[in-house]
């Protein structure tokens, strides 16, 4: 947990319960809610980005890449496990998985 989210004394609080900044949900670790972890197999992935569209947490991170014909495109970089809650939507919607020959993304039990 970020130090700025240490619980404050009443004198330090912004007036009226205001949250005086935007975009701070990125600092909140929802990865601890996860009981299933996604595994991404780059070799089987067709870079269609369907998982990126469906991910409710924005946990699929992208990078710049190129198509086989040399044109620029966005590609999957990694899955951000700080935010991923393990809902499994990515694996459920993945067209490679649906086709059934290969697995591009799958959920496995989190184990300590």
């Amino acid at each position, binding site marked *: 947990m970020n130090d700025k989210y240490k619980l404050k004394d*009443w004198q330090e*609080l912004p007036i009226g*319960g205001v*949250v005086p900044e935007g975009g701070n949900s990125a600092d909140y670790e929802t990865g601890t809610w996860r009981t299933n972890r996604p595994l991404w197999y780059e070799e089987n992935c067709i870079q269609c980005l369907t998982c990126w569209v469906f991910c409710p947490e924005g946990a699929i991170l992208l990078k710049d890449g190129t198509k086989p014909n040399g044109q620029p495109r966005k590609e999957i970089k990694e899955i951000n496990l700080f935010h991923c809650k393990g809902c499994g939507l990515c694996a459920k919607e993945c067209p490679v998985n649906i086709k059934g020959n290969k697995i591009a993304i799958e959920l496995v039990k989190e184990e300590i």
Partner: protein
Amino acid sequence: MSKILAITGAGAMSQAMRQINPDVVPAFPITPSTQVVEDFSQFVADGLVDTEFITVESEHSAMSACIGASIAGGRVMTATSSAGMALMWEMLYVASSMRQPVVLTLINRAMSAPINIHADHSDSMGARDAGWIQLYSESNQEAYDNLIMAPRIAEASDVRLPIMICLDGFIISHCVQTMQMEDDDKVREFIGEFKPAYSLLDTENPVSWGALDLQDYYIEHKRAQHMAMQNAKESIKLVSEEFYQCFGRKYELFESYCLDDAERVIIAINSIAGEIKEVVDDLRNKGEKVGLLKIRSFRPFPYEEIAESLKSAKIVTVLDRSESMGAYGPLFTEIRTALFDVPDRPMVYNRMFGLGGRELFMSDIQNIFEESNRYLENGKVEKVFDYLNVRGG
């Protein structure tokens, strides 16, 4: 130019609103506060103010719209009475807890049932714990003056709480009385610009309002709100002093009328103080040491200051115009609390009067002073609580 004029209490409130020129007024009419917003809507139609006037579908919506507009950074006012404020109930707490300095004219009227449109304080006393600053007014002049001061008191940076200015329905709201109305420009100069702490429309600095607040933070927010209400006491004093410098009428947290050496004191709120002053004058002329303490600020409640003012008092009669069924009147419980730490504290007792607009005549007030004299001579209060002017005793 300031001018002396004859105007109803409700009319005086709408004139004060015109002079303040708030950004937004969402309102829903209810007797006896209707004339306030009715007159004001005419000012809007005539182009005398720049206000966005919103005719909402209920008082709940009126207060909700007030809160929204205030969060957006506007100076916001409205008016209501009785059942109207009861319908605002949920939003009263939201306004104070979100620390929005909304200004409400509350024309005191009895709560139903039986249905009644006349003055008592059951509406505002019921809302005493809602986190609003409450100022009470004896006359048209005081109500007008209180409303001119209200935005400044509420908007002080260490306060930021909503404020309700209370005055008695019909007795004051519908009574034409002589009063001094100040110059428009001078009032606007006194009021100044509202500078919100945060504005929802400030897209450069986005903020979130109304976030969930559970066991980890809610109580800290309440503690901060409690402090703000404590600070309001100083804000009331400062703004009242500045008002006195500007306009020459002096107001404090409460009014001390012939209190200095008074042995028998009546404590009361709102218009009945006028009749009590007349009786005090009469009895003083006969050499009797009687006095009046009239509450102006009920929230925050000035416990220490009142205790200090009652040092010479031997017996205190507290008049309540609001029932708290199964308990003493709300003013009495505060006064008795204030007096508890006073060495040689005076005897104190409670009388309930005027519910639903029942008159209390000057002869009735004379009777109160006679009764307190009897108690004083006997050294004993026979009845701590009783009703005045009720058939059947």
